[in-house]
């Protein structure tokens, strides 16, 4: 039997949709962890990226942090913090939030930095304050890249939260880790399918968001870049 029929059979059996170990409960947990970690990352990275982009400072630091964030193996960071602080919520929250910061920071920074100087000069010439320039010119123009950063972070956190099941976190990763431990491939296959679908749903959500938020005039430009 191929992967797809195994996963389909598991997904469509009624028992998967009820109880504390059912897909709705696991999905809700997963979204909750993802939301908290992403929220923390946004609070830190978004203002920092906007400020650095507006002031045109700190490019080297941003690139270095992005590189470091990429180089750091997620599983390693998760297990290390778990072994050092067993049982505390920090053991999953810190790595999840930390890994979500670089994509938001890099893309926000680059988005604001990439705003045409003619635009900001014109805004300044019209008498806008620096704050108004940021809010009315730079953020809207940078929006495609800001959304890209948020999307990449969201996808990354969903994936990392799955891996965090290895250190005991709930959510969809439980199917994979428990299924592997019990040698039940159908559970693993089904769990993997739900996670792939979730990742695709997030991708779709951001496509929709871009359509709703990004000014029409910028959309074409963003698509070709």
């Amino acid at each position: 039997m191929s992967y797809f029929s195994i996963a389909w059979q598991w997904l469509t059996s009624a028992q998967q949709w009820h109880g504390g170990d059912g897909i709705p409960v696991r999905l809700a947990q997963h979204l909750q962890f993802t939301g908290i970690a992403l929220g923390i990352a946004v609070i830190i990275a978004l203002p920092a990226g906007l400020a650095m982009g507006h002031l045109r400072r700190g490019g080297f630091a941003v690139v270095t942090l992005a590189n470091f964030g990429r180089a750091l193996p997620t599983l390693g960071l998760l297990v290390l913090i778990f072994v050092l602080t067993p049982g505390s919520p920090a053991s999953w929250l810190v790595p999840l939030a930390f890994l979500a910061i670089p994509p938001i920071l890099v893309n926000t920074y680059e988005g604001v930095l990439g705003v045409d100087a003619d635009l900001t000069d014109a805004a300044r010439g019209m008498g806008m304050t620096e704050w108004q320039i940021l809010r009315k010119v730079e953020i809207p123009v940078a929006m495609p890249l800001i959304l890209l950063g948020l999307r990449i972070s969201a996808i990354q956190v969903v994936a990392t939260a799955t891996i965090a099941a290895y250190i005991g976190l709930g959510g969809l990763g439980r199917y994979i880790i428990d299924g592997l431990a019990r040698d039940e491939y159908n559970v693993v296959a089904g769990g993997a399918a739900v996670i792939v679908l979730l990742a695709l749903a997030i991708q779709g959500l951001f496509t929709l968001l871009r359509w709703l938020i990004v000014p029409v005039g910028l959309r074409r430009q963003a698509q070709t870049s």
Partner: protein
Amino acid sequence: MSWAWANRALLAQYTGSHLYLALMPILFGIIVAVPVGVLCVRFRWTWPPILSLTSIFYAMPSLALYLVLIDYTGLTDWTVIIPLTLFSLSVLIPNVVDGLRSVPQPVRQAATAMGFGTLRQIVQVELPLAVPIIIAGLRVATVSSISLVSVGQLIGIGGLGYFFTDGVQRDFPTEIYAALILIVILAFLADGLLVLMRRWLTPWERARGTRRALSATLRGSRAEGAT
């Protein structure tokens, strides 16, 4: 440190398999990405569907792909190499396209005027000029690949990731530290080698200073590492 020294043979062995699992996907990735990128630039209509496809690969959590593949490739190296190749493609193809498109139109026209055929123009003019952006993509793909291999440890194929699960089971942080630091060092070494390669391949960029190099790096960084 003393643990690392005492276990140097084991560390070296896992480092070897780690690099193999991480770099094969990059090799396959660049072999596929260059012709596909050229195709996307030459025949514009192929670009939107390929871009959608790469962004779907990019969104796939690597662990989920490993698990799907177990059914087809069993517990072999391919189970890790294939998803990482798809992931590297999702970074490399857009960068090859971006790089080729950054070639100024007058340069193309000059090449045509000098009698360069299509293939010669691509190989001798456009690809060399696209090198900075292609290498920016290679850096992202390589560094991500080196760190992503360890996730494969959850299905037992993860190079240095072995020390992560082993460290949890034995409650022994030292080996987790050691493997973590080693992976970050490997990633930075590979990154440094790629920077050197860019300098060697694009001697004309050196004269223009670091500002351009930074902007190429930022362009590449746009594609961030997913897990």
